């Protein structure tokens, strides 16, 4: 059980800055996701928490104790890698017992502990099997078991499902999350898959170019993105950006888009120049009259909903609408937006403008 605090942590490899001053807190018992594209610094951050890399600057606290310069063995953290390395010449029981035996735990206690963890993972029936003949899922479970038996303060996982095929991955993701719910151990999990992050995480840190872009619960990050990067990276299809030029003042509750008045959450700051109107696909409505004009470019059937790609004077846009609502390629339609969900961005800085919708989230940093 552990709380982990990251404070102004920075990591350089020679001239290359892998992580710029980053701060966030992982609370006790949280399933915490480090999310971002490859090269964003998420794995380096995880390795610094585990002690596999030492930060160039900043502090890391594990339960109040500063550990950033301690070797991994003194941190009491278990690491689960993408490629699960098991000892091929040992059976499942021996693989799981090994970390305990090397700690000098008495045999009887080891046996009891392994049995307990095997029950949690549902692998009691394969304990005496050699690891060679196991399926991918069972190998993954054994690797987890080997990490769990030690009862570490926290688990670090670096894309543990990355090597699995899509269907099985979904299944293991559910299993991992259920396991976490049973054990309640603090877990830090690295992934580049936004759906996986949304699905499994209690909190998400979104990283890009060595910088923490945003930190919050999945719903917060989705509804109130702090930057255009976050808005684009999270959600499928991602948030739409309609570009427009304007001078806006704090307190405004609507903007002018192609001569039409469009409501937005009340602004808490002004802005001028190149701006973007950010709206999620499910917050776009197709109408027959009025609103913004658009041309239907394509429709994609998804069962109960469909994704409609539209061409507007301010750029392309995707809408998610019920699949029984007619939309045909080539047609001209009107658009309506659910105003209270809209985020406006400054396109030059990529930053969200503060508004009634997001001010609480943005003031948290």
């Amino acid at each position, binding site marked *: 059980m552990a709380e982990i605090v990251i404070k102004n942590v920075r990591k350089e490899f020679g001239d290359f800055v892998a992580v710029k001053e980053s701060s966030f807190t992982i609370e006790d018992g949280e399933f915490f996701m480090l999310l971002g594209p490859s090269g964003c610094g998420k794995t380096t951050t995880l390795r610094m928490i585990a002690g596999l890399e030492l930060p160039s600057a900043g502090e890391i606290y594990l339960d109040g104790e500063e550990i950033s310069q301690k070797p991994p063995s003194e941190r009491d953290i278990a690491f689960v890698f993408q490629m699960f390395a098991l000892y091929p010449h040992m059976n499942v029981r021996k693989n799981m017992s090994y970390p305990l035996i090397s700690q000098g735990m008495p045999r009887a206690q080891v046996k009891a502990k392994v049995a307990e963890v095997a029950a949690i993972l549902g692998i009691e029936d394969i304990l005496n099997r050699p690891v060679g003949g196991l399926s991918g899922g069972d190998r993954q479970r054994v690797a987890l078991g080997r990490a769990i038996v030690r009862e570490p303060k926290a688990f670090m996982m670096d894309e543990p499902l990355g090597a699995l095929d899509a269907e099985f991955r979904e299944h293991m993701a559910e299993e991992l999350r259920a396991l976490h719910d049973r054990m309640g151990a603090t877990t830090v999990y690295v992934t580049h898959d936004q759906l996986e992050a949304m699905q499994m995480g209690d909190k998400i840190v979104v990283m890009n170019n060595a910088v923490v872009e945003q930190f919050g*619960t999945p*719903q917060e990050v989705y509804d109130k993105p702090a930057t255009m990067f976050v808005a684009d990276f999270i959600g499928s299809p991602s948030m739409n950006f309609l570009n427009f030029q304007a001078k806006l003042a704090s307190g405004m509750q609507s903007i002018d888009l192609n001569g039409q008045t469009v409501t937005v959450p009340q602004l808490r700051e002004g802005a001028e120049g190149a701006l973007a109107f950010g709206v999620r696909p499910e917050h776009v409505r197709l109408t027959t009259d009025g609103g913004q004009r658009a041309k239907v*470019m394509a429709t994609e059937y998804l069962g*109960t909903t469909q994704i409609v790609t539209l061409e507007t004077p301010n750029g392309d846009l995707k809408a998610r609408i019920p699949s029984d609502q007619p939309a045909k390629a080539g047609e001209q339609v009107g658009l309506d937006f659910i105003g209270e969900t809209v985020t406006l961005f400054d396109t030059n800085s990529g930053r969200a403008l503060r508004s009634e919708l997001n001010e609480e989230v943005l003031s948290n940093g």
Partner: protein
Amino acid sequence: MAEVTLTGVSKSFKSTKAVKDMDLTVPDGAFVVLLGPTGAGKTTTLRLIAGLEKPDAGGIEIGGESVTGLTPAQRDVAMVFQQYSLYPHMSVYDNLAFPLRSPILRTPEAEIDRKVKEVAEVLHIPHKLGNKSTELSGGEMQRVSIGRALVRDPSIYLMDEPLSSLDAKLRADLRVELKRIHAELSATLLYVTHDQIEAMTMASHVGVLNEGELVQFGAPREIYENPKTAYVAARLGQPRINLLPAGLLGETAPSGAHHVGLRPENIGYGDGRDAAVVRVEHLGDQTRLHLKVADHDVVTLTDPHTSLTPGETVQIKPLSPIFFDADGARIN
């Protein structure tokens, strides 16, 4: 372009029956997607049509003529593979022109030029024609490799998971693009994938495969709304359909019904059977509720901003249940 017909086609590799007695018609001008998990026989079916494999039994016709005994070159098909293989020392233009410069086709150079430019236009890469193929992004490379099939005018285009090695964003863009290309060229296309989103969004017809057999064939909407078996029902839709013991939620089940299939969106709230909330999954545009009803897992959708938390109890009822017998066949 032409209709392609498979009649009673079977193919085994040693003891594994990859394709079992398959009857399949790809209508002229259709965009047919074969959907199934790894090992369902999708790729083997494609390779049988291409002539890269010989069937053990059955016949294959393209445009009404039997091609079962013909070589791949004689069959007039164009294939796109999962891994794009471009000639790295050639420009994009030369890569696209290469299939037309084959000695068998003897295409005049002016005709090649016209065709390459036309295809580059369709693929939105005319400004890249002078580039070396190694100077392209992954998505552009895959477009060029699709383009190499499009410059020809074959009876059918065969595509084997051409988008699976691309990242999610690019895949979404190319899905829309492939559909547009299909419409513009009015081509006949047979496309193989394990990705249900690709099947639903692009296909005019979906064929669902299971262990070498074609289980159902029809329009995406037909397959989604009217699955013939529990297996087909589970292949389309995210989150997956709930397959529960018939009558669990108090619905009246027809005789012989073993399982009831309930899509997450077909579960109503407010009255009915008690269900314990196990987990609330906020995915942004939708929130999934993981429920337990008498030891059975049930997944439903709810308002994105629901205030429900694990441990609470909700009442659920089935809205449009569908029923399956003990073998998984649909009962109407």
